[in-house]
């Protein structure tokens, strides 16, 4: 139930988020939806995978996001010779104290930028598994908590395949959303030439929010109401991926969780204290597509996972009952979307 305090923090949330968004958009121009998605993932306690061709600003986005928030930031350049211990940290024997001393790795930061994540070996990539999901690192039997908030923003290049190791399914599943930046429009590119011609805009970027603020915002997002019907909708969307003929592997229950969390964050960003099916729909491709494995036949037919998700969105009916008040009394005329020609046509 929404309380007065929640509402107040929701207002804070929108204003803070707006500040961060403007700050990032000062660097990444013409891509508001990408920026918004990044923020959504941040507020939903997820990790972001930025996948795109080189040079479109993947790293720039990650850095801009990190710099806009006053928090600890680490950057890991994934290379083939990167070791897991480089990421998680290592215990070194301190001869003076005659004890093992833990040297934290690059993962111990509030925002971790993993650049070109697919260039590291799967062994190294796997080092991220525990930290990303459980927000902790276990070395030599010792478990070290990661700071709060904690977000991994990884980039990868889908085109260049030589010397790369595609992320394993388990790893991909831990990213809440995958986003592609895409090429900027001609105007945006022109403007970029002017702005980036002199100095890097990142240099001028000042933090606009503190890590504490972000933690409070994340708490506020948790209070966003999700109607039973919306939850069911998310479940049905995910379930549909498991049944779809074009998919070898559907989305996991974690995907459902991520989808709902992202939807909550999206609703909070829009200033609402309740999530809508619209939020779920808007995030479905970003949250689900990178977890899906198309069948060989679908690949031959050039059906991408994104298309499959869009297809599912057009097939699964939006729930129109189960609201707090709507369910109290039957309404004359039957359900709105009981059986519709549009749904059958698709």
């Amino acid at each position, binding site marked *: *139930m*929404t309380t007065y305090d929640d509402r107040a923090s929701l207002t804070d949330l929108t204003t803070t988020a707006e500040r961060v968004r403007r700050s990032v958009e000062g660097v990444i121009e013409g891509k508001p939806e990408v920026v918004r998605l990044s923020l959504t993932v941040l507020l939903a306690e997820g990790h972001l995978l930025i996948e795109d061709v080189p040079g479109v600003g993947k790293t720039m986005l990650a850095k801009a996001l990190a710099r806009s928030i006053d928090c600890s930031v680490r950057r890991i350049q994934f290379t083939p010779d990167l070791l897991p211990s480089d990421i998680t940290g290592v215990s070194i024997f301190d001869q003076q104290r005659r004890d093992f001393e833990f040297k934290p790795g690059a993962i111990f930061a509030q925002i971790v930028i993993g650049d070109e994540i697919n260039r590291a070996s799967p062994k190294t990539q796997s080092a991220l598994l525990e930290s990303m999901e459980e927000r902790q690192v276990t070395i030599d039997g010792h478990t070290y908590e990661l700071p709060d908030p904690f977000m991994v923003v990884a980039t990868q290049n889908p085109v260049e395949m030589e010397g790369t190791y595609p992320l394993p399914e388990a790893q991909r599943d831990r990213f809440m959303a995958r986003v592609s930046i895409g090429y900027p429009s001609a105007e945006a590119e022109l403007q970029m030439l002017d702005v980036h011609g002199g100095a890097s805009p990142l240099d001028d970027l000042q933090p606009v929010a503190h890590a504490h603020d972000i933690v409070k915002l994340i708490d506020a997002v948790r209070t966003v*109401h999700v*109607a039973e*019907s*919306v939850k069911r909708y998310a479940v049905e969307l995910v379930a549909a991926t498991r049944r779809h003929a074009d998919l070898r592997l559907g989305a996991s229950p974690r995907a459902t969780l991520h989808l709902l969390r992202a939807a909550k964050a999206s609703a909070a960003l829009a200033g*609402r*204290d*309740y*999530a*809508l*099916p*619209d939020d779920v*729909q808007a995030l479905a491709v970003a949250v689900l597509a990178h977890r899906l494995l198309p069948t060989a036949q679908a690949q031959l037919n050039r059906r991408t996972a994104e298309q499959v998700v869009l297809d599912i*969105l*057009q*097939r*699964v*009916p*939006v*729930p*129109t*009952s*189960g*609201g*707090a*008040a*709507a369910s*109290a*009394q*039957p*309404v*004359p*005329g*039957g359900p*709105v*979307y*009981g*059986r*519709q*020609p*549009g*749904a059958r046509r*698709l």
Partner: protein
Amino acid sequence: MSGRTRLALCAFAATMMTAGALLPLVETSTWLLRAAFLLAVQSGVGALARRMRLARILTVSLQTLATLLTLTVAFAREHALFGVLPGPQAVQRLAVLLTTGADDVGRYAIPAPATDGILLMLIGGVLLVGLAVDVLAVTFRAAAAAGLPLLALYSVAAGLSDGGAGWLWFVLAGCGYLLLLLAEGRDRLSRWGRVFGGASRAPGGPAAGPDGSGHALAPVRTGRRIGVVALGIALAVPAALPALDGGLLGGTGPGQGGGSGGGTISAVNPLVSLQNNLNQPENREVMTYRTNSASPEGFYLRILALDQFSGGEWRPSTRRLRDVPDRLPQPAGLGPDVAVTEIRTNISASRSYRQTYLPLPYPASEVDVRGRWRYEPEGRTLVGDDGQTTGGARYEVSSLAVEPTAAQLAASAASPPDLAREYTRVPPSLPDVVEKTAAQVTEGAADDYERAVKLQDWFTTEGGFRYDTTVTSGTGTAAIERFLKEREGFCVHFSFAMAAMARTLGIPARVAVGFTPGTAQADGSVSVGLRDAHAWPELYFEGVGWTRFEPTPSRGSTPAYTLPDVPSQDPGDPALPTDGASAAPTAAPSASESCPAQGRQPGECGASTAPGVADSAGPGTPAGTVVLWVLGSLVVLTLPLVPMFWRMRARARRLGSSKGRTAADAAARVMAAWREITDTAWDHGIAPDDSQTPRRAAARVVRLGGLEGPAAAAVHRVAGAVEQVLYAPEPGGAVAPAEDVREVREGLRSSAGRWDRLRATLAPRSAVRVIWAVSERLAELGSRWSRVVGRVRPAGRLRRPSRQRG
């Protein structure tokens, strides 16, 4: 002209040309113009509907509707709603007309008078056939099949006109059909594109018009030749084959000679029905009368005269009818010397006694009766027209009591040759025994009168005949022979035999059918019952006219003038006043009995129970039929409007769904309004998509419906409210959904075209929900039923697990 229009014109022409075959059936021919006009309306409606590219079934429905409306206007305008719409009264009127038309068809010989009933049958039939031809040839483009209804029309005409409607009509009908085929062939060819006319064209000239229809095309010409040759063969071959009677060119056929034309009557074989009446267990009253006749025992009431003798039975000839004159003409052959007194009689027929001939004393001179009656002068009978029957009739008759003396009869001159020829005709198949017996019985008689009296005496007394109403009637020429041999029978046999024998003796004779005088009541009236039904011979004597004889023993009264020893002025002591009648009547008359049958058509009496049931309902069509017709037409008319009515009801329910003030009520209102908006949009062509969220659905309605300003805002407002209701923890925000819905509806209507608006109102797409609801209900019932069955029948459940496991 487009191919379809030409085809429609040809279909019209073909129907009209075939309808020409119906012309000889009726006296007048102006009805064909009416039919042509109505058919043109029907075809025009069809052409318009096709031009608007309506669904075929819709086209046919529209044409049917147009036909119904035009028929209503043409035949039942005064009974129609607003002069056009076929309400219950109009349908009843049409049904009555059809029934009387069917009666008239049975009653009148060809050519029949153009009564309203017959006209409705003719024009309605032509329209029906026209509709079938138009639907087949134009709407469904199967011109060849359209030959079937045309053939049916021609066959009806040919069949009714007794063996051939004349070759001219056949050629016309054939030409019409060929025309239709050619038009269709041409249309089909032209749709292939440009067709080359062939090499026979003048060099340099265009082979065909740019649209392929400008000139006669070679294939069309070939088709034309084939058609002409086929028609020629059809005409020529039957003429050449001796086995096929004459063929179409073989003269006019027997049908032409039947009547001398115009408003004639035919039918009635009273033999069987009379016997039925005589064998009734109760003597049901058919009429009562009061008369000032001096000799009530001779007061026979006559229905009709049977004047055609086929050897086996007597029938009435087909004769011309005319309107009832104020005073009926002088009876044929009645001379001035014969003593005549005029008597007046008031007759009141029972309501249950319904037949088409008015019982009259012979010869009536003046009849004062209400209703549509027509007069047949030869038999001096009155015939009901347009469904008129005697049921409940009250009328006053002046008639002549002709009292010739035996001497006058004996002195009668020779009959006029025409009359003598007609009324002494006996078929060659008549057994010789009849003539021989007649000659034997009348041996030694000096004149016709004596012969007649001897015949009568022979039947009544000397011949040893026995009156028995249970004798098998029998038909055919053998019947009379058997009667003469076995000497058992009832009035029909006696009268038939005597009339036949009189004819063989050269005395003009016919058989009259009617009633014996009946039973005098205490109040001075006379009651006539069914058992008084009777038949008697009438013999013609020049100077006296048609004279009644009474050969049936123990029935009726022997006329005084047939008793030569007694002067006619004497009261006459044979004193058999009302033999049969006085013996019988005991039970009270029952009004439910009907179809007394003497004067009825054979077909009508065949099902004597059916009219009996309907009698109490009044004249005309049985009430059940009328109700069915009315209900049927109502269903046909309202069925297409059911979606509209359902939609209106749904809208009213949704917009007034609840007036409560609780949050749940408000939510219900919002949801109902949203439903109404999506359905209204659907009616205007924006099909709902259940994968769309309310927000997106609203945007889609605004985009596709071309909504602007307040209407667009209203859609978004309601969608927002729906979001709150469905997904928010607490629905908030005050909206007035009903007003918003109205706003949206107005917006959608104003941005839609006229046709779309009409369709959204009359045939709303969202009405398909009714079908869905019904199918869901059925499925639910089915599953519930199967559950019940499964519970009741363990065997059924035992079989299931395998499927469940599978």
